[in-house]
């Protein structure tokens, strides 16, 4: 336990120091994407890993967060920080609307239902004139400031903002893991009928886990919108993104606190670096290497990379 804490402190220290050593925007961008996906992976892990409800619709929360921020900023000039909050409220509302009927479904049917929800959201936003329809929304270029959540000259502020979001997500997950809620959720995953017989309100705790997952993902959506400053339905709500989150958790370790973190630290640099060093000639070699690694990992360590670090003691 102590050793783990020391490693965590070294790891976080390295993350804080990283942009001070690497001044170029590209390494900083890569780290930003890693932390963004790690945070979203943690969000996915809470519902998909701990609670065992595989969701292919998490991109919808990402989109809701991004769109809530963008719409409020563009149409009403409201600071993205408030937009982030509103995005969370809408995401939780969506999680409850989706969860209420869908959590009655067992196993695979829930996964299928979430695919449908994700696609419905994508279609709604593609055709919704007020939200820019298929063209999407260009964020206005405002003066650099923390309130405006826009920084043009350096990526440093973005880097530290996502670092805070990332650490907060780890913190939330840490508490979740140790709380009564976390135990309930794991019980639901292992044996729903057993959990119910012990008096756990399955429906309710699934819903709470799904809402936490939605909030984390939605905050990441807001960050993405402010970071890229242009959003459109396919960049924020694509099914592919939900699948990526699932892959990140699978690579790292399902239902483990640092699983998605390790997953994102392997997955994102792999895509970024192979693309830069091998992909610019466009032969698709990068994607081949990348998929090969996933296959090897699936055969060699199906429990995820987490199992390597803990020397196979993890289940």
């Amino acid at each position, binding site marked *: 336990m102590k*050793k*783990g804490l*020391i*490693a965590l402190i*070294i*790891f976080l220290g*390295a993350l804080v120091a*990283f942009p001070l*050593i*690497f001044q*170029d*925007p*590209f*390494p900083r*961008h*890569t780290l930003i*994407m890693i932390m963004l996906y790690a945070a979203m992976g943690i969000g996915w892990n809470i519902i998909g890993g701990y609670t065992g409800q595989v969701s292919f619709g998490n991109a919808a929360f990402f989109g809701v967060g991004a769109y809530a921020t963008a719409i409020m900023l563009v149409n009403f000039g409201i600071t993205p920080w408030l937009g982030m909050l509103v995005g969370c409220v809408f995401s939780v509302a969506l999680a409850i609307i989706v969860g209420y009927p869908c959590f009655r479904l067992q196993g695979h049917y829930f996964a299928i239902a979430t695919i449908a929800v994700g696609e419905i959201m994508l279609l709604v936003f*593609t*055709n919704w004139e007020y939200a820019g*329809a*298929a*063209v*999407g929304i*260009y964020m206005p270029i405002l003066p650099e400031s923390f309130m405006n959540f826009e920084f*043009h*000259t350096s990526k440093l502020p973005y880097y530290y903002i996502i670092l805070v979001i990332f650490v907060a997500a780890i913190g939330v997950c840490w508490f979740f893991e140790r709380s009564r809620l976390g135990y309930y959720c794991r019980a639901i995953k292992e044996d729903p009928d057993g959990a119910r017989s012990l008096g756990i309100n399955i429906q309710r705790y699934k819903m709470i886990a799904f809402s936490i997952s939605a909030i984390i993902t939605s905050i990441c959506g807001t960050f*993405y919108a402010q*970071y*890229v*400053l*242009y*959003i*459109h339905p*396919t*960049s924020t709500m694509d099914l592919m993104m939900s699948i990526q989150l699932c892959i990140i958790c699978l690579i790292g370790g399902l239902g483990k606190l640092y699983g998605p973190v*390790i997953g994102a*630290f392997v997955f994102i*640099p792999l895509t*970024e*670096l192979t*693309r*830069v060093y091998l*992909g*610019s*000639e*466009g032969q*698709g070699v*990068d*994607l081949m290497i990348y998929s090969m690694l996933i296959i090897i990992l699936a055969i060699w360590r199906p429990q995820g990379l987490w199992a*390597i*670090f803990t020397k196979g003691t993890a289940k």
Partner: protein
Amino acid sequence: MKKLFQGFCMFLLLFSFTSLAYAQDEIRIGVIFPLTGPAASTGQVLLEGVRLAADIVNTKNNLNMPLAKTIGLPNLKGAKIKIIPGDHQGKPEIGMAEAERLITQEKVVAIIGCYNSGITATASQAAERYGIPFVNDSSTSPSLTERGFKWFFRTTPNDDLLSENFFHFLNDMKKKKKINANPIALFNENTLFGTDSRKYQEKYAAKYGYPISGVVLYPAKSTQLTSEIQKLKSYNPRIVMQTSYIADAILSMKGYKELNFAPDAILANNAGFIDPEFTKSLGKDANFILSREVWAKDLALKKPMIKTIADMFQKRTGKSMDGSSSRAFTATIVLADAINRAKSTEPAKIRQALLETNMKADQLIMPWDGVKFDAKTGQNMQGKGIIVQVQNGEYYTVWPFNLATKDVVWPFPKWEKR
């Protein structure tokens, strides 16, 4: 835990290989296209278009085109152009990251890209931040040039201009051939492409005084369109303006034949209607469709230089030149010419030279009147589309009339009489 730390160190090490120094006698131009992902084949063709243009600039060629007759850029001591490709994979955040990487690590002096409008949007934002000229070759979303960017230039006509062309065509038909057909009905697929097109079709129909009798939107992935076509038929249009991808374009043509629906003209928004698959799978049923286009091979009959370039392209790649590669080619020539006139690789001077660009129609392989950027928006104001018609399974330019290689067949013959 030690391993975790070791892993992190390895990861840091990877990044330390990323910065290198470069020779001064080459002009580095960044090019961002979808080299992998769903649009990879188009991305490759676009990149080849850029590379062909760079080769023409870097070697001696007897063409009436800026920089063709000299080796390299004469005003920069014959410096040669070097193309640095970047792959955006169809993702906006990757487009942005690639632009930043090309600017800060590869030290490019200007960027060309990105084909997909959504990615041009984010990549050009990065260029704007760093103050590096961005020349957009083939994204047609009008909103891109409405952002008031200082460093953004677009050579291709946008959807707004291209949509208006249909009505110029109809007006020309009225004037020169005394054909006056209305009302119009719209038949569009229901995502970005179709809904956006509808906006411009309605705008210009109102402006030019053509009534619209009805609009039918359908999902592009439909497996049958019978009820939609019946609805379309009930609007009794004489002209149908259609926006479709390939599968639905073919499906709709089969449906028209089956339901014996033959308006005077079907004016299509390129995409599915100019896909090689379209004429291949429909055979003679594809005939007489009119489609907007940005480029056509038969333009060479009126402009011999087009044939020379198209042949060079064919020889290099084994593929025939098309609207994408010709536009990527043109953007590269325009940019190289500006750098040469700037006599410098300083971004501000290149930008100034781009603003002063004034290329004439005979120096281009495009059907445009020339290249001259609007100082405020960065849009080339002399761009123009063409209208092609399928006749005997081949596409021929039928409008503008001065570039036409075949006379337009109007009206669309009834199905039983063809």
